[in-house]
């Protein structure tokens, strides 16, 4: 029992460490004056919120470009992940180990090297400094996670149900959409959510491959963090983290909805 007390204390410390920064972020973004050593801001102001909404950066355009890049990357990464997962779990072919390794490869290449190298490749393909190039790199960054999530669920489901559907006369496409896809939905949603968050958070890849032409919230936020205005940095970080968590929570709710639906059937 005593050990559980220690573990509980450890958990409590972990919760504090996770939540405290978030609370401080909210306080700083609304603080007009918060000098050392006050534990709470001395004066409040909505200056940062005005700056965020109507200031030098066009927030809605930034949100729009970040969200569309994220959605595009999530969709493509999940699609390629599904195709790869099917090939790896439902088909027999030589060199499967190599295919699995290829799926993980982008995780093993250091991010700075990957971004710089892929920029050189995209320069030759004419895709450097374009939104399409940035989208491609975001997909590549998210793909290992999509493949890993979707291979797990596809292997767990197996191909037997689709074979039954085929025996009963369904074509392969119909068998997949009517039988397998609904069962795979929780995995598909996790993959979409993960890939979205990864794309939404990209800084270095967008900076290098977008060449400053493709602007996202994650990219524009960094100079504020480097600058001295803690309140302004906090309000951008809050807008970024808040919007990302909102999307993540939406996916969580969808996943729970699908799991409940599965339980009812």
């Amino acid at each position, binding site marked *: 029992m005593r*050990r559980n007390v220690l573990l509980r204390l*450890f*958990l409590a410390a*972990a919760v504090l460490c996770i939540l405290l920064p978030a609370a401080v972020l909210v306080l700083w973004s609304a603080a007009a004056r918060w000098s*050392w050593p006050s534990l709470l801001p001395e004066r409040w102001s909505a200056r940062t919120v005005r700056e965020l909404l109507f200031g030098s950066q066009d927030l809605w355009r930034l949100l729009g470009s970040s969200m569309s890049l994220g959605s595009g990357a999530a969709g493509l990464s999940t699609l390629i992940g599904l195709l790869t997962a099917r090939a790896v779990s439902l088909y027999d072919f030589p060199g499967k180990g190599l295919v699995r390794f290829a799926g993980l490869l982008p995780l*093993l*290449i250091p991010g*700075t090297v990957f971004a710089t*190298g892929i920029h050189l490749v995209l320069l030759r393909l004419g895709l450097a400094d374009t939104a399409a190039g940035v989208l491609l790199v975001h997909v590549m960054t998210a793909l290992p996670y999509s493949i890993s999530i979707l291979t797990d669920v596809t292997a767990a489901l197996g191909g037997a149900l689709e074979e039954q559907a085929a025996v009963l006369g369904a074509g392969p496409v119909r068998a997949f959409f009517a039988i397998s896809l609904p069962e795979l939905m929780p995995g598909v949603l996790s993959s979409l959510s993960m890939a979205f968050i990864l794309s939404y958070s990209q800084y270095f890849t967008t900076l290098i491959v977008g060449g400053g032409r493709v602007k996202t919230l994650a990219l524009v936020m*960094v100079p504020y963090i480097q600058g001295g205005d803690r309140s302004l940095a906090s309000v951008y970080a809050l807008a970024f983290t808040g919007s990302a968590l909102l999307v993540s929570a939406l996916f969580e709710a969808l996943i729970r909805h699908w799991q409940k639906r599965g339980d009812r059937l």
Partner: protein
Amino acid sequence: MRKKRTACLLLLPLFAVTALSLLACGSVLAQSLGVIPAFGLEEPTLDYYRNALTSPAFHSALLVSLRVALLSALAAASLGTVLCAALVRVCRARGAMVSLIRLPILVPHTVTALFAILLLSQTGLVSRCAWALGLIDDPGQFPQLLFTPGYGGTILAYLWKEVPFVAYFTLALMAGVSATLGEAAENLGASPLRSFLTVTLPLSLPAVSQAFLIIFLFAFGGYELPLLLGATVPKALPVYAHLAYMHPDLRQRPAAMALYGVILLLSAAMAALYGLLTHRLLRKIGGGR
């Protein structure tokens, strides 16, 4: 036969993406050997590597990156394992606590850097708490963690993200082992601590060690945290390399690429070494498959 062809078709996009990744690494390595036909450089040479490897600035950058990666990964793997054990033992690996643990994994490194600035700087919240507790009378007395050659703030910021990552990464395996073999050991009379140390922990090591490799390589090649929280001198290796890459004189390009080449080759070497070591170690403990 048909089946093989279908599998090949399904794998086409992965092949294309893998080819792009390999081309990316190949381009960096080619330029690091001084082969940039567009600049009229066509003879491959190891000179750029020789120059990089003998420069004192490179040595200190390499040391910074190795130190940050090793310390943060070791501490995160240990604390993450304890956190995972706490989640398994206290929360049965479910519920709100597990969702909360995912939060730092979702927060990007740039925002984590801002958290470090707001909390750990000499006028940050931790320093204010130290004043409230009567430990210091002046912000100057609070230890400098940020923008210093010790990279303490960078390591702590990595920990904030990586401890939950290790716990989350290990959770499924440890929960499974604990619910089966761990309980069996306790039913046979082992104390919870003994059952954890002799049964659950060794069998969870494959996940812990994989998580260790992932976070070590990530911190070694990471750019954002040392850029935003590190010292001006010495710089971390990726920050140093990117600065060299941004040099306006394009003839400096191969020298910058040699730095990226070193990061790439060292990461690959460490991954390979890790593969060999853990393979043996895990087989010895009996936790490997």
